[in-house]
């Protein structure tokens, strides 16, 4: 269960979230759609507990495990793509299994490459895979398909749909096509830039 109750968040004089309330359905993918600067990422960080709201509360199941793709990739640059994933999964996956998962999102040759040598899109997919392979009850995704070309995005979206079936996912984007392809429900944040 994930519920935001009367969440308010200000940065200086700028009110980013004003009495935002919403229950996020279990086992469904909820997209938070809106333009840049409307508070999508702030909402996601508040839901994850990374930012303290000025008002309201977040209700989450006790000992609920979360996983995330952050606004930035937040990968360890000096570790290989495979090691970045193993850092989170531990021994639940073998090296071969991780290599196979990497191959499934088009990163077949990247398992043993240090992340610092990967392109932006490759890093994004590694970060996404790390989040998908972690043990979680709720998955938070902040623009997870950022920097991917159309063909790669299609492959990755398809992979995400399979991996998140029956899982609770909150997913932030500014792209309506991504919402249509991945989300079960859509929340539209209306603030302008």
């Amino acid at each position, binding site marked *: 269960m994930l519920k935001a109750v009367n969440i308010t968040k200000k940065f200086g004089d700028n009110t980013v979230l004003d009495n935002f309330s919403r229950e996020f359905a279990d086992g469904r993918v909820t997209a938070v759609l809106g333009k840049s600067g409307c508070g999508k990422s702030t909402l996601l960080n508040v839901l994850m507990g990374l930012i303290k709201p000025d008002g309201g509360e977040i209700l989450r199941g006790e000992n609920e495990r979360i996983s995330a793709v952050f606004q*930035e990739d*937040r990968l*360890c640059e000096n570790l*290989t793509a495979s090691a970045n994933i193993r850092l989170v999964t531990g021994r639940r996956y073998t090296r071969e299994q991780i290599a196979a998962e990497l191959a499934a999102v088009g990163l077949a040759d990247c398992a043993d490459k240090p992340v610092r040598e990967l392109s932006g899109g490759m890093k994004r997919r590694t970060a996404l895979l790390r989040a998908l392979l972690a043990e979680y009850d709720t998955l938070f995704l902040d623009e997870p398909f950022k920097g991917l070309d159309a063909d790669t995005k299609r492959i990755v979206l398809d992979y995400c749909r399979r991996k998140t079936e029956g899982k609770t996912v909150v997913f932030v984007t500014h792209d309506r096509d991504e919402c249509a392809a991945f989300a079960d429900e859509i929340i539209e944040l209306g603030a302008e830039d």
Partner: protein
Amino acid sequence: MTKVKKALITAAGILFWLIVWQIAAVRLNSKILLVSPAEVVKRLAELVPTGGFWRSVLFSAGRILLGFALGLSCGCLLAWGMGKSRVIRALLSPLISAMKSIPVASFTILALIWIGSKDLSVLVSFLICVPIVCANMLEGIDSLDPKLKEMSGVFKIPLGRRFIGVYLSQLLPYFRSASRLAIGLCWKSGVAAEVIGIPDGSIGEKLFESKVYLETADLFAWTLAIILLSWLCEKVFVTLIGLLQRRVERM
């Protein structure tokens, strides 16, 4: 540039300076002022098979490397403390800065008064190593990405795995450059301290004797031995850290 090409360029540079040295030695024609490279190598070849040579090497290398190892540990520990607490940082910063600027000769004379000459090079190497390692590691600690710490919290990564994957992986490059710099300086300062303190059976004593008896060939041969030992220690240590880095990289 390929490795072979790089090696050839380095070798050409060394050869050039050896030729300059040889020409200078021939022109000066004085075995007290300058001996030729060939004579240095010949003298070193005479020294190497002797037991005295290896006893001196073991005496000095053991102490200098002990000082280096203690300095590494202490430098890392101090950097960790300074990274953790502003009070510790405020307290230790002037001390570390002072240690960086104090001349080796001053350390040596002070160490002679404190502990005598036998283990002088341990203390001097230690005192030279600590501020270098501490400053480098602190720079690494200061540049640790706080967002990776937050990421570790979100994924609830266990402490051991977090230490290796998140912290060690970011700090090892700083540790590598600190130890590379420190190990060479430990050798230089350790031997310099021995020349001042003249502990029995040390390399410093041999250098001192070569000065007293005007044995320039000995002086050069021992200097070459020190350069080779310092280079070897650096290579071995940096290779070991490189192996550790590759192991951490793959986790």
